[in-house]
């Protein structure tokens, strides 16, 4: 795990001026001994899974259950993750969203109020980033696989990511493992002075745009000014990011060197690399929260499957059923790989990154068009206090998925008592 040079910290804090209020927490952190942070990963798979062979029997609730055959690759981790069955989004999807596996998956926003894809409620990963994301270079990673085509990836038409920010605005993702690599490793080339000069320059451009904004604002009707507000918010957000880059320009990132990936990396290789990069980012404390809208189409292409993702999700006939099984097995293998990586990364207390993380993997879609009782695998120990290796069975159709989200938030902030539609916490796992 990365340690900032304390001297650097304090010097910069004293220099003052450029630090925005939220970074003062950095100064506070410098004084005490660093506690190992909890990390969270939210994986959305889009289309639901095969009806038979993925879910453990509902009659085998508890620690003694048979691992379903499609998930054999996860056998070596069986004691370290759990199934949480019969979780549902209580809110409805718009009627045209027949395959919206990821729409409001991390927030259940439509259960609370009238929402639309661009204006909804904050997703759990962004709420978490608000709690634990200010001390790291990036408050969170919002990721999407390459080649996802809207509703045809099973995530939902027009979706750019799994995440909605703290104002409820839908967020764009870093698309593809190559872009993520650049985001993590990119800044190394430019010298600090040059980087700072460039950042100052960009700030001048932003200032000019603010003047442009003001001139337009005065000409507009009241309701149009509300629209222009988005531009203004975006400007401010860019400014904040700019300040952050400025701040972090002087710091070491402690990222180990890896072979740069090819630009066109996609499919199974891309998912593996994404898992690798998330692990490295956690290790170097570049971020502590990640959401990932996973690809389906490119994985099917790698598996040389003939059906389209949509066709597969409806499994008409033998070919698509086989495709669905193969996809589920492959995803299980990849997930198992991710757990391996996290377990292999040691932390300063002798435990592993896996012990200090929580990973949620699932979808709002059970299968085909059914948007209830979706699949959910929950792994990791979140820094302590969690039980794993369980088949948690809830009553059908009524248990809000936000129960899990609330539970995860409480792991980093005990004061959290509700998250959107939550009614309870998942006590079998969280105690």
């Amino acid at each position, binding site marked *: 795990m990365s340690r900032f040079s304390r001297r650097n910290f304090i010097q910069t804090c004293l220099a003052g001026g450029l630090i925005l209020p939220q970074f003062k927490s950095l100064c506070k952190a410098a004084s005490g001994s660093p506690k190992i942070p909890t990390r969270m990963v939210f994986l959305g798979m889009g289309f639901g899974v095969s009806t038979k062979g993925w879910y453990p029997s509902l009659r085998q609730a508890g620690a003694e259950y048979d691992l379903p055959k499609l998930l054999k690759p996860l056998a070596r981790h069986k004691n370290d993750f759990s199934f949480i069955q019969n979780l549902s989004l209580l809110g409805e999807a718009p009627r045209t969203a*027949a395959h919206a596996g990821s729409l409001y998956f991390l927030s259940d926003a439509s259960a609370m109020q009238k929402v*639309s894809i661009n204006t909804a409620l904050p997703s759990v990963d962004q709420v978490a980033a608000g709690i634990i994301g200010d001390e790291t270079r990036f408050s969170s990673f919002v990721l999407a696989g390459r080649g996802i085509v*809207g509703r045809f990836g099973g995530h939902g*038409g027009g979706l750019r990511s799994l995440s909605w920010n703290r104002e409820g605005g839908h967020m764009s993702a870093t698309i593809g493992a190559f872009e993520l690599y650049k985001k993590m490793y990119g800044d190394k080339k430019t010298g600090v002075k040059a980087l700072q000069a460039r950042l100052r320059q960009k700030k001048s*451009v932003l200032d000019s745009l603010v003047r442009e904004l003001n001139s*337009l604002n005065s*000409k*507009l009707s009241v309701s149009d000014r509300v629209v*222009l507000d988005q531009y203004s918010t975006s400007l401010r957000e860019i400014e904040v990011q700019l300040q952050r880059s400025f701040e972090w320009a002087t710091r070491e990132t402690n990222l180990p060197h890896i072979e740069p990936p090819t630009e066109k990396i996609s499919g199974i290789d891309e998912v593996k690399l994404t898992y690798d990069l998330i692990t490295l980012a956690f290790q170097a404390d570049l971020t502590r929260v990640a959401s990932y809208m996973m690809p389906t189409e490119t994985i099917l292409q790698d598996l040389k499957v003939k059906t*389209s993702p949509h066709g597969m999700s409806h499994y008409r006939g033998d070919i698509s059923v086989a495709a669905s099984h193969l996809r589920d097995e492959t995803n299980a293998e990849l997930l198992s790989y991710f757990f391996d990586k996290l377990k292999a990364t040691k932390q300063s207390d002798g435990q592993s990154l896996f012990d200090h993380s929580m990973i949620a993997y699932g979808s709002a879609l059970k299968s085909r068009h059914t948007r209830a009782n979706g699949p959910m695998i929950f792994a990791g120990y979140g820094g302590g206090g969690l039980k794993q290796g369980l088949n948690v069975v809830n009553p059908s159709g009524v248990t809000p998925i936000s129960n899990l989200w609330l539970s995860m938030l409480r792991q980093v902030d005990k004061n959290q008592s509700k998250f959107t539609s939550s009614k309870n916490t998942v006590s079998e796992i969280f105690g």
Partner: protein
Amino acid sequence: MLHNKKRISFVLIGSILGAFFSFVSLAVALEVDQYDVIKPFLDKHCISCHGPDKQKADFRIDTLGSTIKSSADAEHWQEMLDLINTGEMPPPEEPQPTSEELKAVLEPLYKTTSNARDVMVKSGNGKMRRMNRREYVNTVYDRLGVTPNENLLPVDPGDFGFDTFRKELVVTPTQLLGYMSSAEDLAKRLVALISSRESKPKEIKYIFGELLYKKKAELSTPRANQWARPMFERFVETLYKGKPSSISLVGDMEKLFKEGRSRGLDFWSATYDPLVVALASPNFIYIVEKRQALDQVEIANRMALLLWGAASPDEELVDLAKRKQLLSKKDFVEQILRMLNDKKSERFYESFGDQWLELDRLDLVVVDKDRFPDVAKNYDKLKVSMRKEVREFLKELIKNNEPANKLVSSDFTIVDPLLAKYYGVNYPRQKRGFQKVKLEGANLVRGGLLGKGAVQVLTSTGSRNSPVERGVYILRKLLNRPPPPAPANVPEVEDNKGENVALRELLSHHSTTAQCATCHARIDPLGFGMELFGPMGRIQKFENQHEVGKSGGVRINPSGQLPNGKSFNSYGQFASLLAQEDEKIARSYVSALMSYALGRPIGFTDRGQIDQIIEESRERGFKLAELTFRVCASPYFRTKN
């Protein structure tokens, strides 16, 4: 008017509404006209199925009350009016109201719905939007002669209707960063272009003037700095023609330029940031319409956005607008026709055509390699040609002001050699590219949209026809009666493993299961009307005739009936009957065009306008250029709404 024929009741819920209609509250609640007359009618004829005991089709009437408070309320009343008016409600098997009873309620219902519309339109809900990626790229090209790199701009969320929909065209930090990167990239390319020997677009020559010939040495002197401002002035004048620019823009550009120079940048590098501000300014990227009633320059912008896909009205348009002469009837008609024939209108036929007719679905069809190996190999090329055929066809009909029902039944199509061979139609000798070909005899089936390979392929699964998809397509695109979406948790029909079971049998559940039949009785027969065409758009006598190694099998059964009850036994009859529904076809076109033009789903408030456009075009047979013109001439195109 009562229809005595036995009809299957068809639910219109959601039929006019888009997925995300804006929820409008009325400023003042409206009382339902003559509620004391309407209520007893509802109690007698409606409440038993749409009341506290039963809510058929999820529609409940007793809770509506006597006041209309929102657009949702208004939609309900409009629906009731429509269904009573066409005789669909009460259903034929129930006791029917007398003519006197009907007359007594229809009048106040009409009055109520009209009043609601008036009140709602006046509340003006059209929100400002930014240009989408397509429009931005086209606008910059039209103004500067150089195309920006569109890959630097985020993809617009495109799954909700047209890419002009206002709700989706917001500015996020990523979007703004995209505009800034794209602008920086463009600035760099402009500079590279200037320094190169390549021929430069006339706009560039005008903007940069003498600077094009200045040597590097000259440009590095301090004296050179004074040349920047006039150049920025010309840049803004050119880029912002027809758009509002701020007074401080040029000054800001000059300031940034000077800052860059003092930091040691050379002349050209110091122009990047100034150009970024001009290209990423909200004055440029938003479509600004200051007041409820648009001024003529703003209308000219809308016309250019619609018909040329860019906020770049040319000299002629801007000139007329500035002299306040654009809206004189004669000038307006002339301009619309000129625009429809201008080369830039290709963008309209392509963008509107592709989106309205959902041609992007061609990319999502995975051709079954085992069943159709020959098609699978060539699919990439075939797709391109099939798309172009539809666009050229649409262009031909609109440009030449053909009647709307030619969309269903025409005696020509427009193909390239590849498609001509695929269809087996004659292609004129010694010609190249896409040519108009006359269709005769058996080939007549290739006329109209439903005869196009593109439409046939995008409504298949890649392995088999999907009569349901085809039926839905026809209802949505041509008959202006989109069916409600499938219920979310409907169990999937199991695919039958038997090879020689007819498609109709596979879908038999749709007619035997009560909850499915209501909608599917309207959808499936239409889809079956297209059975002549296989999943790869080839004419077939047997189902899946072109599958490898197959001969014979189940004969196709191209019979069925239209929603109005008329039946057919062949595709030819089907197309003829459909073509008679010219008013519906015209409405479909007008609704789609209006939605695209106004940047929102078509809803309750638009009925009046659409009705008027239809009435005015009826006499001449609903000609397409005329319909296009009337959409542009409608008050909704000239106001924010």
